[in-house]
């Protein structure tokens, strides 16, 4: 794993330097073209514990120190950025380097933006729910109580953005598939379907990740424009399920089957708040008929949301989200007897409440996912206090409740944890 990270880091840095060399001015010293680099970052200590015993995991849910360094510079023709975290992880008992960003950005014409390298990518309208945003997420970081920024994992990609009067187009090409940092037993216990039970560190089966450069690639497209104050977008994606969505018939290991996705979204003012709606069709391309019991069904996904300021500095947001399996009868027929079966539809309601106090230095926040169909819930209460301009204190919890051990949030019940963090930013 360390080696893989080093390799990826190396590739990122080399491509950055190459790009710099290709574009750099011929005359004068190469470095003369660059502005003096700006260095920023933070140092953070974060610790958390499970509030109950988990027979497959340690009591510590998160225990780490992290130094993030961000360096940026620019020339006449481009901007450059590097961002990376040095991490001492006392849960996995290892040191790690998390290369977060390393990119070149250029605006070569009035109609085109280009960003190449390791970057964080986001689009879509959901609040902590994603339909057409098929860029990698770090669910482990999210569930163990790291800063919410870490929910977004970086992509190694080229992003081209075209801007016209009629429509704007984003094209993101990822030459080698970037999966989610999905739950896989090393930090969190989860429902292990092959054995019909919860598992954790005893079942850290590595998934078979498609990793051929330029063959196992991803392409994501967004077309968008604003129509009388409403932001309207169409999306397309060709790649893979971002978290394992099947099992290899030969090795039994989790796999990432092919996925094509098509969708649309709209967002704009409604009453005194902001409303959004999004829809997506997930075509599970390796199992279009839905008959293969080892590969996820195709799905429709729907989302509506509304957010509003209730009183000054108190915001509320609600969302309703549905995942609908499209070949449910085929799924039922082919599903192995004895193993837990999913419902056809998964319904999720979310509620966000955020209150700012003490000159906006104290933030009380509660984000709740509740699924009436799965009978499970995930609560994310947190308190964040900016003690000074540099020092922030945070505490919170990740609470999982469920009736059954195999539902989406219910499977994580024994991972319920509380955490606290101190961060010094510079």
């Amino acid at each position, binding site marked *: 794993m360390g080696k893989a990270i080093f390799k990826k880091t190396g590739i990122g840095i080399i491509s950055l330097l190459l790009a710099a060399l290709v574009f750099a001015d011929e005359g004068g010293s190469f470095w003369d073209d660059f502005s003096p680099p700006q260095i920023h970052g933070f140092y953070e200590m974060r610790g958390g514990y499970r509030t109950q015993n988990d027979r497959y995991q340690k009591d510590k849910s998160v225990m780490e120190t992290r130094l993030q360094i961000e360096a940026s510079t620019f020339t006449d023709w481009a901007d450059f950025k590097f961002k990376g975290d040095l991490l001492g992880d006392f849960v996995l008992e290892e040191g790690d380097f998390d290369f977060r960003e390393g990119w070149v950005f250029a605006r070569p014409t009035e109609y085109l933006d280009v960003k190449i390298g390791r970057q964080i990518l986001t689009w879509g309208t959901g609040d902590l729910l994603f339909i057409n945003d098929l860029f990698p997420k770090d669910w482990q970081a999210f569930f163990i109580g790291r800063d919410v920024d870490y929910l977004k994992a970086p992509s190694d990609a080229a992003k081209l953005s075209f801007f016209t009067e009629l429509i704007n187009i984003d094209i993101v090409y990822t030459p080698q598939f970037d999966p989610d940092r999905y739950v896989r037993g090393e930090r969190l216990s989860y429902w292990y379907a092959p054995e019909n039970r919860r598992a954790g560190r005893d079942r850290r089966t590595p998934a078979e990740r498609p990793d051929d450069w330029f063959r196992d690639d991803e392409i994501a497209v967004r077309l968008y424009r604003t129509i009388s104050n409403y932001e309207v977008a169409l999306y397309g994606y060709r790649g893979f399920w971002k978290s394992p969505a099947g099992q290899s018939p030969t090795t039994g290991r989790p796999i990432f089957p092919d996925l094509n996705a098509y969708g649309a979204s709209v967002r704009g003012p409604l009453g005194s708040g902001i409303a959004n709606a999004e829809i997506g069709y997930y075509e599970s391309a390796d199992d279009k008929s839905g008959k293969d019991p080892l590969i996820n069904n195709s799905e429709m996904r729907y989302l509506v949301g509304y*957010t509003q300021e209730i009183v000054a500095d108190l915001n509320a947001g609600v969302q309703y989200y549905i995942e609908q399996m499209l070949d449910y009868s085929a799924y039922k027929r082919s599903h192995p007897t004895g193993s837990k079966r999913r419902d056809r539809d998964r319904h999720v309601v979310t509620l966000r409440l955020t209150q700012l106090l003490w000159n906006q230095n104290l933030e009380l926040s509660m984000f709740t996912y509740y699924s009436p169909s799965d009978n499970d819930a995930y609560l994310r209460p947190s308190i964040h206090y900016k003690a000074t301009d540099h020092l922030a204190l945070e505490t919170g919890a990740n609470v999982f409740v469920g009736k059954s051990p195999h539902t989406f949030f219910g499977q994580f019940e024994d991972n319920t944890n509380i955490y606290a963090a101190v961060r010094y930013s510079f």
Partner: protein
Amino acid sequence: MKRKMAGFFVTSFIFSVIVLAHNVQAQTPSVDEIITQANHVAYYQGQDGKSKVKMTITDRQGRTRNREFIILRKNDPDNDDQKYFVYFQAPADVRRMVFMVHKYAALDKDDDRWLYLPNLDLVRRIAAGDKRTSFVGSDFLYEDVSGRSLLEDTHELLRTTEEYYVIKSVPKKPETVEFTYFLVFIDKTTFMPMKMEYYEKDESLYRVIESKKLEMIKAKEDGKEVEYPTVTQSVVKDLKSGSATEMTFSDIQYNLGLNDTIFTERYLKRPPREAMR
């Protein structure tokens, strides 16, 4: 007879007062002219503008917090709508965040607001909230930064001093604001609002904004050299909480020719160089 004489004196006195008042009025612009001009000078000079802003918030105990940002503004040539682009540089935890506003002059149309969070690459659309809430945790309110529509209040010229026109503004919808009225002290030569005093129900003063420094900033307007009077330091004091915020403006430029597209998602995600340095 005595009564008649008294009547005559009273009449002539009233007459002369009216004549005097009329003479004064000839030099004094009307309330509407004063507030319209003051609003223009305070918020609308030039087609567009840019400034670096440093904010220091000092609480009752003397603890300070700082904010630094670059603000770009562009006027709609056809009406009083405006677009604002605010690029944060400090403190570290909000660095590179962008706050964008499309402000609409019409009272029945809410402003559009966006916030860009760079660590998540997330463009969040923010519900048009109460404009009288704190701007970035300071004692300035959103409305102080982007202006309060003149149509929200009824205005009265209370008095004229050597330096100032003193305007009393009373909200038409008192339930939507925390004050009962405010006084604006408008400089007679530049028409710049130099002081604003906010009063509560019991007539007590609880909030004061003062323009501490005024500079003439050179700019080009239609190819000609002009000078715009510009506040380069202003202070707001919350007399109840004991907190104060000072804002200083530097690197002020007018009529840069900012493109409309700057105020779109493209530049939210990657700010223009004008906004970053």
